[in-house]
């Protein structure tokens, strides 16, 4: 066939993935005829991962049937979930027409296009051109999203909808997502509804309406929509994830675990296994947690998709199940495998060694303590303490506290726990895990003196600030919260209070640019720390109203 001269295509860098050399050569030739000369080849998933690490590809053509252990879909999931593909990279999945309809629907990470063999250069060219057109058309939106200008992105969506109507579905997806993140539920609902008006069975749009209900605090309504979607589309993975989120927000850990288990049945990936393991651990179901982490560990052994966290999670579960020796075995196996895993999987990530050593020491000290080896337990704990640079409001710090209690260092444990809670006293999951740790350690009395007292301290700060605001001491009030944020910058309770009080100040005294910036910063932080939160959505609404009011007065 004739060579198509096309400067847009010639610049592209491509990667062809197929376990058969003849097929790779075939596609490489076809790409060459389109003017795409920069073509790399890979035969296995590990080859792919190695190449992608050092090169940014614009086009990837991957055969669905890679090899017996991994298929193209699993590779895609790994690459997308680890954010290893550049946002403009086009991923083509190639499949035989016999397996065409079985490969697609369940997938949670979709390729940019499915193509059926035999591939012809002409068809690839058309698809690439089409995707390039789309990228070009949507660029203004994605540029805004890249700098986190969500409102700007939404405005671009409205504009481009008119100039490039053939991308309406992608535009509505982007718009609704941005609106949801901004807590602008009215716009989000409108966008989802607009999509449904075009085609009433778009499951992503129906699920989107469920997400809106969830963000509005109507958990039961949200759940009803999701269950309805699942009835007609039992393979729709995203729906199970939303179900799990709803259950979690209602504190129903068992329901969350059930939803995630269902999703695992559909896509039994290592990544899903980990989600199930975490949920099972939170729900106190140690057996399921153990199975899940074991599966993740065995499935990824020797592969580039292995993660050290699997062994660590498994070891912790063993400790909690009273199998301390097993825990130590798992830890030592992990320790010997770890350096290679770190090197293969995340050679650029900082502090990897440190993090692994810290987690390992935390778990080891618990295990030694359980086995009655006090000396080793204390040594391990001391090592952990040294490796722990900051005491943040996270699971690792809680585990460190747990280790302290296991070794008999109650004061130490209380101090660590209090520090973590002070850093985010309204974090329900954190507080719940703290309570559980104290219960399991046989120290229920400390719940009041450590947990409740710390929470009260932090709430007091918020109350004082609120009172000051009420009494007209505006600047003192705001200063008090700013001070609190200095020492605990990710405390969601204080961030919410700070946002609220700044907005109250402005609703009475008028706009202040510094304060508007501050509120935006707080809300951006909160969106990250508490995704899909009703309270954050309300705060965004308050911000918008305040800006509108101020505009009217001006």
């Amino acid at each position, binding site marked *: 066939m004739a060579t198509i001269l096309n400067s847009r295509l010639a610049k592209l860098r491509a990667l062809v993935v197929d376990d058969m050399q003849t097929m790779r050569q075939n596609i490489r030739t076809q790409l060459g005829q389109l003017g795409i000369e920069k073509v790399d080849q890979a035969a296995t998933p590990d080859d792919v991962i190695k190449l992608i690490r050092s090169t940014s590809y614009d086009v990837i053509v991957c055969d669905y049937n890679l090899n017996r252990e991994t298929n193209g879909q699993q590779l895609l999931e790994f690459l997308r979930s680890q954010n290893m593909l550049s946002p403009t990279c086009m991923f083509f999945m190639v499949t035989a027409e016999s397996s065409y309809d079985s490969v697609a629907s369940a997938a949670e990470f979709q390729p940019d296009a499915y193509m059926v063999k035999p591939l012809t250069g002409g068809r690839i060219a058309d698809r690439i051109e089409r995707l390039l057109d789309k990228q070009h058309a949507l660029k203004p939106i994605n540029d805004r999203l890249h700098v986190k200008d969500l409102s700007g992105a939404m405005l671009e969506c409205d504009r481009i909808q008119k100039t490039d109507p053939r991308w309406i*579905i992608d535009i509505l997806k982007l718009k609704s997502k941005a609106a949801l993140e901004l807590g602008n539920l009215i716009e989000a609902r409108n966008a989802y509804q607009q999509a449904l008006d075009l085609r009433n069975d778009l499951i992503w749009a129906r699920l989107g309406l469920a997400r809106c209900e969830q963000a509005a605090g109507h958990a039961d309504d949200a759940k009803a929509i999701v269950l309805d979607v699942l009835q007609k589309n039992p393979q729709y993975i995203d729906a199970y994830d939303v179900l799990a989120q709803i259950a979690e927000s209602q504190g129903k850990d068992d329901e969350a675990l059930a939803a995630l288990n269902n999703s695992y049945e559909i896509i039994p990936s290592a990544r899903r296994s980990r989600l199930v393991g975490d949920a099972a651990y939170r729900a106190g179901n140690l057996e399921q947690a153990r199975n899940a982490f074991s599966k993740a560990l065995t499935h990824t052994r020797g592969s580039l998709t292995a993660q050290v966290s699997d062994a660590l999670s498994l070891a912790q579960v063993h400790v909690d199940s009273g199998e301390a020796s097993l825990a130590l075995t798992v830890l030592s196996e992990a320790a010997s495998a770890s350096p290679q895993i770190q090197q293969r999987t995340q050679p650029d990530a900082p502090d990897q060694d440190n993090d692994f050593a810290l987690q390992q020491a935390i778990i080891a000290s618990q295990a030694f303590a359980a086995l009655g080896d006090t000396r080793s337990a204390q040594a391990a704990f001391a090592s952990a303490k040294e490796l722990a640079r900051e005491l943040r409001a996270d699971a690792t710090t809680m585990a460190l506290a747990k280790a302290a209690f296991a070794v008999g260092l109650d004061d130490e444990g209380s101090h660590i726990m209090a520090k973590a809670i002070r850093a985010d006293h309204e974090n329900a999951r954190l507080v719940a895990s703290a309570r559980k740790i104290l219960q399991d350690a046989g120290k229920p009395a400390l719940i009041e003196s450590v947990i409740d007292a710390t929470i009260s301290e932090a709430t007091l700060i918020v109350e004082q600030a609120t009172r000051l605001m009420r009494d007209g001491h505006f600047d003192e009030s705001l200063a008090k919260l700013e001070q609190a944020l200095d020492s605990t910058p990710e405390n969601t309770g204080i961030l919410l209070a700070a946002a609220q009080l700044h907005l109250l100040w402005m609703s009475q005294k008028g706009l202040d640019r510094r304060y508007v910036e501050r509120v935006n910063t707080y809300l951006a932080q909160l969106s990250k720390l508490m995704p899909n939160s009703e309270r954050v959505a309300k705060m965004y609404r308050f911000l918008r109203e305040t800006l509108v009011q101020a505009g009217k007065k001006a």
Partner: protein
Amino acid sequence: MTPQLAAIIVHDLKNALGVLESELAALTEQPDRTSAIHAHANCVALREKLIGFLTLYKASEQGLTARIEDVSPADFLRELIRHHETTRPELNVRVNTTGVPDVAFFDEYLVGLALDAALQNAIRFAEREIVIGCQQQDGQTIFTIVDDGRGLGSKDAQPSTGLGMALCAAIAEAHRHNGRSGSVSLENAASGGALFTMRL
């Protein structure tokens, strides 16, 4: 897919392969580019026929699942024409752009197979021109292919195996929406030729 239909289809494929064989035999004696291009076009058409047959067989055994996606019909039809390996390059095959919706929802791969087969048929019978269209009506996307041949039932029309229409019907059937499945029809066009319609 009855055994009889299957037998007829395989027979048809055998004949097409025979034609290809003699074209290639002639080429070994006297290689020339035009004939090679023609033989290649025949080969591609043959492979596509086989894929059509396999798709149809699958539909009858397991049922076909349509992967519905949002597609720009304009892009889709343009590409369809561009890639159709035509055995009669002198024909004018064009898209009627009036009324084409910005976006439609269907399985691009399957509908591509169907329209390719329908287009193949139209090409056999057309005199000079084939017009392809797409409309949105009553919640359905409607593709049409009109040729300016002598229409259905004319005496010198070559008999077809029915594979094309059977394939189109199976693919339309796989597109179920709001409790309604798609449909295809082939009838005489008002202008004298044949009108193929696919409703999804």
